[in-house]
C-alpha cells in the first residue's frame, strides 16, 4: 500500500484533480440546463412544457455510459462521416462535460420544477396582483422560496454527479478511475489501489456533504 502511495500518490492526486475539474465543468452547465428546462416545464406554454418533458424523459431513459459513447464517438462520426462536415473532434473533457451536463441537467430540471411547484400558487398570484410581471415575480418571490426546498436535493445530485465522473473513464478521460486502472495494470496490486481510490472518493464526498449540511442548516435558521 505504501509503495503504491509513494510511487503513484501524486499521480492519483492529480487524477482526483481531473475528476473534480470534470465534475465542476459538468455541474456548471448542468445548473444552467436544469434552470432553463425546469422553468420551461412550469411556464404556461404547452410547447415549452412538452419540449422540457421530452428532454428529461430522453436523458433519463438512456444510461449515462451509452450517452458518453454516443457523444464522444457517435456525434463526431455523425457530423464527419454521415453529414460530411469535416474536422469535428471532441476532447474527452469536452465530451465528458457535455455528457454530465445533459445527464445531471435533466435531474436538476426535475428538482427545480418540483421546487417551484412546491411554492404556494398564491405567492405568484399576490405578486402578479401588485402589477409585477411574471418573470419578476418568479425571480423575486417564487424562486427564492423554491431554492430553500431544493437545496438538499441539489446537493445530493452534485454528489451523484461527482461519482458519475467515474463512468467517463470509458471515453479515456484521465480521471481517478481511469488512472487507477493504469496503476493496477502496472503493479497488479488491485486491492491496494482500489482501496486507496475508494478512500479518496469517500474523503472528498464526506467533506462535500459536511459543507452541504452546514449550508442547509444556515438556510433553515436564517431568512
Amino acid at each position: 500500500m505504501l509503495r503504491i502511495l509513494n510511487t503513484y500518490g501524486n499521480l492519483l492526486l492529480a487524477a482526483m484533480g481531473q475528476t473534480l475539474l470534470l465534475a465542476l465543468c459538468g455541474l456548471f452547465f448542468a445548473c444552467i440546463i436544469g434552470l432553463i428546462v425546469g422553468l420551461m416545464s412550469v411556464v404556461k406554454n404547452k410547447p415549452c412544457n412538452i419540449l422540457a418533458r421530452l428532454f428529461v424523459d430522453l436523458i433519463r431513459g438512456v444510461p449515462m455510459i451509452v450517452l458518453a459513447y454516443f457523444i464522444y464517438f457517435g456525434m463526431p462520426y455523425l457530423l464527419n462521416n454521415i453529414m460530411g462536415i469535416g474536422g469535428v473532434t471532441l476532447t474527452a473533457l469536452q465530451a465528458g462535460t457535455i455528457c454530465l451536463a445533459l445527464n445531471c441537467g435533466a435531474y436538476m430540471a426535475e428538482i427545480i420544477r418540483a421546487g417551484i411547484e412546491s411554492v404556494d400558487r398564491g405567492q405568484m398570484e399576490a405578486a402578479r396582483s401588485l402589477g409585477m410581471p411574471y418573470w419578476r415575480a418568479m425571480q423575486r418571490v417564487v424562486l427564492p422560496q423554491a431554492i430553500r426546498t431544493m437545496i438538499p436535493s441539489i446537493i445530493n445530485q452534485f454528489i451523484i454527479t461527482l461519482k458519475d465522473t467515474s463512468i467517463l473513464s470509458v471515453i479515456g478521460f484521465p480521471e481517478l478511475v481511469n488512472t487507477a486502472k493504469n496503476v493496477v495494470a502496472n503493479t497488479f496490486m488491485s486491492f491496494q489501489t482500489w482501496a486507496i481510490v475508494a478512500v479518496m472518493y469517500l474523503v472528498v464526498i464526506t467533506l462535500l456533504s459536511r459543507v452541504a449540511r452546514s449550508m442547509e442548516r444556515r438556510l433553515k435558521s436564517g431568512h
Partner: protein
Amino acid sequence: MAINKQNVKIHVEHLKKNFGKLEVLKDISTDIYEGEVVVIIGPSGSGKSTFLRCMNRLEEITGGTVIVDGCDITDKKTDINKVRENVGMVFQHFNLFGNMNVLRNLTLAPVDLKKADKQTAQARAMKLLARVGLEDKAQAYPAQLSGGQKQRVAIARALAMNPDIMLFDEPTSALDPEMVGEVLEVMKELAREGMTMVIVTHEMGFAREVADRVLFMDGGYIVEEGTPEEVFSNPQNARTKDFLNKVL
C-alpha cells in the same frame, strides 16, 4: 364619502368564464362606480371569487368585456400589469411573501416597479403599517404573525401601490373568529375614506353595515342586487330568500 356616478371604475358586460367544460360565470353585467363599496354574497360555487378574480384578470376571461379604469382588460394588447398596479387585491389566505419581512412585503412592488425610491417606499410603508396598527411588526416575518395580523399586513401591502380600487376575496374566511373584527375594522376605515371596494364575503353583518350595494350571485349569474336594506330585509328572488334564511 359620496359615490361618484359620473365615473365608472369597473364596467362588466356579458362576462363569461369557463373552466374547461364547466361554466362558472354565465352572463354577468354590472358597473362599479368610484367610491362605491360593493359586497358580493352567495352560496359557495356560485362564482363570486371567480368574478372578483376576473376584475384583475387573475383568471383568463372566456367571453364578454371587463373595463377597469378605462382599460379593456379583455384586450390582449392592454398592459395588464399597469392596470393591476391600480387594483389592490387581498386574498383569503393572505399570500404574504414568506421570504421577506413585513416591511419588504410592502416595499417590494413599489420599489421594483419604480413607483417610489426605497426611502419614500419605506416611509410610506411605515405609515400604512401604523394605520393598520402594526408598525411594531415591520421587521417580523409572516410566519411570526397571527392570521389577523397577516391579513392587515396584506391590506397594507395592497395599499402600498396606492391603488384606486381594492378587491377583497373572502378576507376573513381563514381567520379565527376573534381576529375577524380587527380586519373588518381596517376595511371599514378604508370604506369611510372613499375607496372603491369590491368584497366577496360571508360576513353578512359587515355587508349590511358597509355596503353601498349588495350583489347576490347564484349559478354564475347575479340573481339580485340592491342596497343592503333591499337585499337583506326585502329580498325579491326565491333563491336570495332561501340563501339568507340559511345564513342569517
